[in-house]
């Protein structure tokens, strides 16, 4: 069972993604700010992180950079209400980007795709 960490300051968003991914068979962890997220990454093994860029006090970009340095194995999908082009300006090199206005089907597809690729790369070469 894969573990997904949802980092978003909006409570309703966290609740929504919690319900969604739990139904899809994920183990879901929630964080409302960067500090809480860092604590969780430090303690548990996280497969995918859904990271909101616009958060008050500490922006999501900070969490992205720290993760890249110290928790390289965590796959990060950047999410925001802003369009993808804007997200790319803020963060380059994430494994995927998600525009929240596009609905949950797209989100599920992206998360599954990221995990699939991950599994493929982890399979030992014949």
């Amino acid at each position, binding site marked *: 069972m894969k573990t997904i960490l949802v980092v978003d*300051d*909006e*409570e*309703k*968003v966290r609740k*929504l*993604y919690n*319900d*969604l991914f739990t*139904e899809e068979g994920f183990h879901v962890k929630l964080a*409302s*700010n960067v500090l809480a997220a860092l604590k969780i990454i430090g303690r548990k093994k996280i497969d995918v992180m859904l990271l909101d860029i*616009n958060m*008050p*006090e500490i922006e999501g970009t900070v969490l992205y950079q720290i993760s890249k340095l110290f928790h390289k194995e965590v796959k990060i999908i950047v999410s925001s*209400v*802003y369009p993808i082009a804007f997200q790319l300006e803020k963060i380059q090199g994430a494994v995927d980007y998600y525009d*929240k*206005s596009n*609905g*949950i*089907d797209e989100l599920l597809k992206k998360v599954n795709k990221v995990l699939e690729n991950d599994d493929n790369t982890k399979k030992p070469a014949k």
Partner: protein
Amino acid sequence: MKLNSIRFKTSVLYTSILLIIMLVFSAILFFEVRSLLYRDIDNDLKIKAQEISVILNAYENIAVRTLNLSSPAVDYLFSEYFLHRAKAVIDEIWRSQSKALNLVNDYIDVLNYQGNSIMLSGNINEELESLFKGKMMFSLQNEYFKDIKDDKYCFRVINHPFRYRNNVHLIIQVGTPLKNVNNVLLKTLLVIVITIIIILLLTSFMGNYLARRVLEPVMIVSKQADNISHKDLSQRISVLPADAEIKQLIISFNSMIGRLDNSFKLMSEFSSNVAHEIKTPLAIMKGELELALSHDRNSKEYKRVMVSILEEADRMKRIINDLLLLSKYEYDYSIYKYERMEICGFMNEIIEESRVLVIPKKISLAFDYNKENIFMNGDPMHLRRLFFNLISNAIKYTASEGRINIAMKTEGLKVYVAITDNGEGITEENQTKIFTKFFRVRRESQSFETGTGLGLYIAMTIAKAHQGNIEVKSELSKGSTFTVVLPLIS
């Protein structure tokens, strides 16, 4: 050169003024010269006429002495004789004295009291005679001058009456040709005209050149201004090479661009704020609906989703209203309708209306004040919004059974309304940030986010529009005091 351009107009104006000045000057000059020349001639004629009369008198005296006249009959005879002889005299004078009196080119005509010519100088031919007779009037009383002319001749004639023997009235008319004078005047006129034309041509070219030089900075400014569009309002027009008056124009222009730049920035900031703030509740609504529809759910779950959607719709409505109000505040202060209002009664009303808001959380609400009948210039509708924003903030951030106290006091020409709660307080770091747009404090404990982050920003805008301010004092976990300062009128 365009016909309605400054250059053309200035050139025409300048040339016209110069032309008028030169014409006036030339006219004065010309007529001065003419009058000087004529004066000379007139003096000459006068002298000549007097000389002639002297000679006539002298001759007559000699005749009187030699003939020894005494009776009127003899007088008459003599007059006739004299007149008959006088012609010969005139001729003789003309011949002998002409060089001395400079009468060579002149014509002499002596008339009797009836205006008939009795003697003419020998050089008068028929043509001249008819000219004299036709054009020259006579006067027994006055000495006067007249110009007479026809196609061939042009004369100035003096009419010089004189008496001899106290009873014989004669008129001596001497005419002198004006040919030389006219030549001089003509030449003068020609020189004047040519000079004027040359000067005008020169000055019109120079004027044109000067105008072009003066207007060059205007052209430069125009070209630079053409390049400035809303896409890049950071450009400014360079001030350095311009003269003082144009410099002022450029400075004004640049500051106008700066203001436009600010306005555009505000507008585009507003647009992106709207987009972002609205998209979040929309994304939530969409997500929840999609999730609910992805599997069969029971009616309790459906109900929960629908309630959540409703909440988000309300949130969007509040955001849009706040943002619209905000845009009006930022761009259009004319929506404030100031009137003289009494604050004590006003605040009492607000407190009474707020009592219903504190009931759910069982918060106590108290209002005290130290003075009644205090007046200010304000817009009651907007001030209501200001105070309700502050009071609802106090309620939101205070726990159940808490206290909210509102104290109003006056000091000099200012009123201080302090709204104190014993809620969770604000960190020092956040105390400056809370008045900024869309700032919401991160709170773990709240059940759902209802705010738009605009309440305090709007409150501050209203306070500032009334020449007032809002100050905050707070301590974490102890409570906060928001003090509204407003100016009074006496």
